[in-house]
């Protein structure tokens, strides 16, 4: 009973204890930066390419068999005759590489160097550069689209190399590009060699990705579906540099005056049009067309329209 006052005191004190608020704390205060769809940071290098045949010269293509047939009169039984019967040429292009293949935001139309080259192919088959259906492909989708025959031809800043020759056929080289580096204009990066440990944006399935992953300075490749996604990441400070062919970089730099292209070309990236492996007659046809475009100044005028004063066109090499 003598403990009673103590017990009462404890109970009174417990009753007087402050009641905490039930309101939840302010959550989610940390910023979550938005990212493009399907961004992947590559911690391990992509799987090593299959060993190419020792004799491979990737720039050597199939020799034309003769002069071009007149438009609308493709030889019976040829791939071109099938395309003609179909009524239009289905071309895999890019809509995100400014100046090479891009959508003009004002008209909504696809335009660029690659697109004009593709229209020349349509003109040679149908006599009409408009007899064409574009399918927009990401870098990664190019070879599967050809293998599954969803497109007749791919004209999309595609580098010819021995690994790809095993799955598709290439035309002769229609443009000679080389890989360089794009950085913000205040960056101290001078080229691929000073990007060790830094984040470099490339597209999935591109030869640029393999080149960046193989660079001796060991940059960290970050892959996205489209080249413009790389520019978004650079502008949002999520990557330190973009590295790919100088043509694509020039198109990106033209959209952002606060970037600069630095360093020398550290790889040669010869572009070819790609075809399904079986369509050799079509390859020979397009090579004959390219001979004509180089000779009659069409190549030079398309180059002038998109990429400035034209150099001498790339020389065709054949493997027969």
């Amino acid at each position: 009973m003598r403990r009673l006052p103590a017990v009462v005191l404890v109970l009174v004190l417990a009753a007087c204890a402050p009641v905490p608020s039930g309101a939840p704390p302010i959550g989610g205060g940390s910023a979550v930066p938005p990212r493009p769809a399907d961004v992947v940071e590559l911690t391990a290098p992509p799987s090593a390419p299959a060993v190419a045949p020792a004799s491979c010269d990737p720039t050597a293509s199939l020799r034309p068999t003769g002069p071009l047939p007149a438009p609308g009169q493709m030889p019976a039984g040829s791939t071109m005759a099938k395309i003609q019967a179909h009524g239009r040429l289905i071309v895999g292009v890019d809509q995100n590489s400014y100046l090479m293949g891009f959508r003009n935001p004002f008209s909504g139309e696809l335009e660029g160097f690659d697109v004009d080259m593709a229209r020349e192919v349509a003109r040679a088959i149908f006599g009409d550069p408009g007899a064409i259906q574009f399918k927009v492909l990401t870098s990664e989708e190019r070879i599967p689209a050809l293998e599954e025959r969803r497109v007749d031809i791919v004209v999309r800043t595609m580098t010819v190399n021995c690994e790809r020759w095993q799955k598709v056929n290439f035309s002769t080289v229609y443009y000679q590009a080389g890989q360089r580096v794009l950085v913000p204009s205040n960056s101290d990066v001078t080229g691929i060699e000073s990007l060790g440990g830094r984040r470099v944006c490339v597209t999935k399935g591109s030869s640029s990705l393999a080149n960046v992953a193989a660079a001796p300075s060991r940059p960290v490749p970050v892959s996205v579906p489209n080249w413009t996604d790389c520019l978004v990441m650079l502008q949002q400070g999520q990557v330190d540099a973009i590295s790919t062919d100088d043509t694509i970089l020039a198109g990106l730099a033209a959209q952002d005056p606060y970037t600069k292209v630095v360093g020398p070309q550290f790889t040669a990236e010869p572009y070819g049009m790609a075809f399904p492996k079986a369509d050799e007659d079509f390859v020979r046809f397009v090579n004959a067309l390219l001979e004509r475009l180089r000779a009659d100044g069409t190549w030079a005028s398309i180059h002038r329209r998109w990429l400035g004063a034209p150099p001498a066109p790339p020389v065709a090499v054949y493997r027969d």
Partner: protein
Amino acid sequence: MLVEAQRNRGAVRRVTGLARSTPGRLSLLALLLIVLSLLVGALTAGAVQRRSDALEALADHSEPLAFAAQEVYRAMADADATASSAFLSGGVESADLRRRYEADVAKAAAALSVATSEIIRSPELTTALSTLSGQLPVYTGLVETARAHNRQGNPVGAAYLREASTLMRDQLLPAARELYRVENGDVVRDLGGAGSLPWLEFLLGVLALAVLVFAQRYLTRRTNRVFNPGLVVATALTAISLLWVLAASLVVVYSASASRNEATLVDLLARARIATLTARGDETLTLVARGSGAAYEASYVEVDKELGDLLVRSRGLTPKVEEALEHHEQWQQAHRRVREADDSGDYTTAVAVALGRDPAGAATAFDELDSDLVDAIGAARAELTGAIGRARAGLGGAVPGVVVLALLAAAASTFGLWQRLKEYR
């Protein structure tokens, strides 16, 4: 200790002694009846109050919040679809599309502020709500960056739009869906709370009546008087209270079960509208992706099927969706034409059918389906709030009524027994 035990024993003896004498028993009976009347009154009033609280929560919080959550989702999905359409129609979007996008963002923000004001009621929504209010400005920022680039003819604008759309689809819309799911669950819960059968009220009332009847039979035996006016009045008052509470509760139960149908309909229609907007977004994004939009088309097919199911299910509950079903069919036909044109390489026709003002086009059918659903949701929601209002009216005055009747019954019992006790003085 010994003294204390003796004292306790003395107290017990006094009480049992009191209980053996008739006046003592009458006093105890009076005490019992007072306590019982007051206790039953208080418990019944509490039960009625709980029912009334559930209705109030439903009318003032859950239902408006579920509607707000639905508005958040709808406005955000529509903003995304509109931004894609604006991009598809060329660099400088039409004033109409721009206005629609701006209205959507304003609506989403307003509905979100309503939803956020109730965060204390549902702490589990903290993450979803902070994602919604935190990422909405980021989303609009990306859309404006895309516009600025589009105006300068830079293809990177499309990449910003894709990033915005990814943010919308991967973070904002799932958070909005979670918000709607929880708020709609609250509606169902509150409807259940208001619509439960009044067993507790019934049993309490019957207990009070039974004790009163027992007390009167006891008095009849003891005093040879057939009626005790005080106890008769108390019994009548208790019976009135019981009948009132039962009648009012049954009105509420009936209205709540009607509201449950309306709430299901509102939910079905709201989901149909969200599916409509999602399908429209998929339709336009398939064209924006130009050849690489197979994933969007697959999503369209899935959402369109869900939309058809939801519309057919709503038809069982209201005839108002007949027109919506017709317009849905028109839209499906227009969508087939869009796909045929796009798949055969006629992109210009595909865009024209998808966006143009042609009366047989996809845009017209979509707009009409959307406005059908708006009308149907409005009507269903008016029915729902009407039913809740009727239920609340039925409970009006029941709580004070029960309390007053219980006090009067206690007073009447005391008076009745006091008259008998006086005879023993």
